């Protein structure tokens, strides 16, 4: 964890006071509704279909057990006993009363949390790899860079009224688990041939109405220049991004309409002017930031445990969970354990107050009191001794958080959809449940193998459908909910946008359509090792199309 100092704490405390006053003035009729809207959005507060929705920042997905308990307290005290983890590592509460939001923010500030810039046309929560610091394929821990960026972006006076929202994501690993190519700025921390640290910078990726895989704007930016380069990109965008049409206001449109080469030239010209300013990081800045993060005293005898293997052999349910929901850890004798928030009958990403309290307890007992949120809407206990995994699994199973489906078909991403969101055209949670019902059999899911199904209730794309191996997009057709399907998208290193299969499917047809797609894959794959994505890229759309639309053609 990064721990606030008094400076950080003062800023979030003063933000609560500011927002309490803004809310008071709004309720007293002293602040116009459209202006209060812009101000409350910068504190994460939307007004949704049934009630306000509050989105709370979880910077780069990192939570302490104390913070998770506070989220449980908020769910219990101000909401209907649950919260919803999002695809950007945040959490949303769907039922707070507007008048009580200042109290919620004060509760959050007491555990070094906030809802600052989780919405609105400003720089949003910085996201990163949920395996940061423990992944075997990692160059270094990206989180100190993320925190530096968080502080630079927080209340940045110049960039609080941008043309549109602005999202930054970091990855420092070989495998991109932060979907950096679908962010306004994606940062890959790299080491160049000379052994120096730096960044590859992608600008202008994004989902929504015009999905674009972010092009590379700079192959190697020296480590010291991170914030000055951000500032150059943001300044070009703030000055020149379109404000005449909300659908053309993201930086991706500016990059596209300007042309990549010309855009790059503008950014570089601006950067030349500021790269030697105070924004340039000095030797020691990052070390100082790194020192502000907790380090863990790993148990040197963890690897001598033999109970883990014994339980694997003796308990097939535990073995199934271990196969899907554990990942290797850099330290011998430790594993990364996933807490699945994708269970039957539960909206993907939802968690109850009781579960939050219980997982906080488990984190204290088994994982140094730390929890991470993944962009796939699950949680991670990143540092668990192998000898503790069996009792951890038993506890998670009793909580309904041990569905052994991480990375499988029912581990799907889904936005809140028409059930909650005022933007949505169609329901998504119900479709997720239908898919869950169809593919409930775990053996079948294992047979299908790794696959990412992503679903959004409208083309804003909160469910990242454009980059799903199978993407599902809810659309409205004369008041009825219909679903478009795309195949072959990816948000990882091989990022690509999915291709439309053809005409959309009705609510009744959509889950069976997914079944047909899977049937084609199982029939056509050249071996069990060929993943769905690899198979699609090899055989193309035609066989899927033939299966999906066969009856219509007949």
């Amino acid at each position, binding site marked *: 964890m990064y*721990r*606030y100092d008094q400076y950080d704490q003062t800023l979030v405390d003063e933000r609560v006071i500011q927002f309490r006053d*803004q809310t008071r003035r709004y309720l007293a009729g002293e602040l116009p509704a459209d202006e209060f809207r812009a101000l409350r959005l910068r504190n994460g507060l939307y007004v949704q279909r049934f009630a306000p929705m509050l989105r709370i920042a979880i910077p780069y997905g990192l939570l*302490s057990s104390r913070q998770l308990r506070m989220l449980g307290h908020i769910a219990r005290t101000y909401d209907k006993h649950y919260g919803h983890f999002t695809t950007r590592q945040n959490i949303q509460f769907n039922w707070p009363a507007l008048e009580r939001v200042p109290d919620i923010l004060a509760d959050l500030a007491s555990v*070094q949390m906030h809802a600052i810039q989780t919405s609105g046309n400003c720089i949003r929560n910085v996201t990163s790899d949920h395996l940061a610091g423990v992944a075997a394929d990692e160059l270094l821990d990206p989180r100190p860079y993320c925190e530096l960026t968080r502080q630079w972006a927080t*209340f940045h*006076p110049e960039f609080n009224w941008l043309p549109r929202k602005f999202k930054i994501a970091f990855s420092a690993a070989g495998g991109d688990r932060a979907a950096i190519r679908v962010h306004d700025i994606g940062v890959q921390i790299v080491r160049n041939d000379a052994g120096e640290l730096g960044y590859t910078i992608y600008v202008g990726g994004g989902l929504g109405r015009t999905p674009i895989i972010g092009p590379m704007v700079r192959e190697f930016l020296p480590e010291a220049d991170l914030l000055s380069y951000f500032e150059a990109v943001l300044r070009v965008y703030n*000055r020149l991004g379109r404000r005449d049409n909300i659908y053309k206001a993201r930086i991706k449109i500016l990059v596209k309409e300007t042309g990549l080469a010309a855009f790059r030239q503008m950014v570089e010209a601006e950067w030349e002017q500021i790269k030697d300013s105070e924004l340039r990081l000095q030797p020691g800045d990052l070390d100082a*930031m790194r020192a502000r993060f907790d380090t863990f005293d790993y148990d040197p005898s963890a690897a001598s445990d033999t109970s883990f293997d014994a339980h694997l052999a003796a308990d097939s349910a535990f073995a199934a969970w271990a196969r899907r929901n554990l990942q290797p850890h850099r330290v011998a004798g430790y594993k990364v354990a996933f807490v699945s928030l994708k269970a039957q009958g539960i909206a993907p990403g939802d968690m109850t107050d009781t579960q939050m309290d219980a997982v906080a307890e488990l984190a204290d007992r088994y994982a140094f009191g730390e929890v991470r949120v993944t962009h796939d809407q699950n949680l991670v206990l990143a540092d668990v001794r192998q000898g503790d995994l069996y009792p951890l699994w038993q506890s998670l199973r009793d909580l309904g958080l041990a569905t052994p489906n991480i990375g499988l078909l029912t581990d799907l991403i889904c936005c809140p959809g028409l059930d909650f969101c005022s933007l949505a055209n169609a329901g998504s949670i119900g479709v997720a449940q239908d898919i869950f019902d169809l593919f409930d059999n775990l053996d079948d899911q294992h047979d299908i193998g790794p696959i990412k199904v992503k679903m959004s209730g409208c083309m804003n794309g909160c469910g990242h459908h454009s980059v799903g191996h199978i993407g599902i997009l809810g659309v409205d057709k004369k008041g009825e909910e219909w679903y478009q399907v795309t195949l072959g998208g990816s948000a990882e290193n091989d990022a690509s946008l999915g291709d439309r299969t053809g005409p959309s499917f009705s609510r009744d047809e959509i889950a069976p359509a997914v079944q047909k797609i899977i049937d084609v894959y199982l029939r056509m794959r050249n071996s069990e090792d060929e993943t769905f994505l690899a198979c699609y890229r090899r055989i193309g759309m035609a066989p899927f199309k033939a299966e999906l639309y066969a009856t219509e053609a007949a």
Partner: protein
Amino acid sequence: MSALIRPGEVLDNRWIEIADDADLPASGQVILSWARWLSLDGQIPTGDLQIGLRLPNTLDVVAHASQLQSHPLLVLDFPSFADGRAYSQARLLKARLGYRGELRAAGQAVVRDQLQSLQNCGFDSYQLRGDQDPALCIGAFADFSASYQPNLLAMRKRLRPGSHAPLAQ
């Protein structure tokens, strides 16, 4: 007429806005639109006239720096509450070009809730939107007692050992 303020005080506004089709006075302090200024094409009446400019928020202030520097007043415009382009113009004028005159914010965003950000970007004076209470606004520059921006000096100091200890969590 709305109030002109800076932190802690309401100011007398001695500058007069001249409509684009009105004649220029021979003396005094006047604010001209950028378009009007361009149309004068350097034909400025000699005498005691001081000219401030009101700039559109689409103007590239760096490209036109030489025409801006000598004016004692520049007014940057916020045509709507959520249009933040003039924030960047302000920082470029002050931090990049070292503009020494008075930088004034005017328009729909010059309200209580944006004053401190405006100040942090280098504005000197604020022509409040008509509905704003100047008595409240002159105290609104202290919502936050600290800032992470615009430079990193504060961060650098506090991150160093022995400066600010992390709080217990």
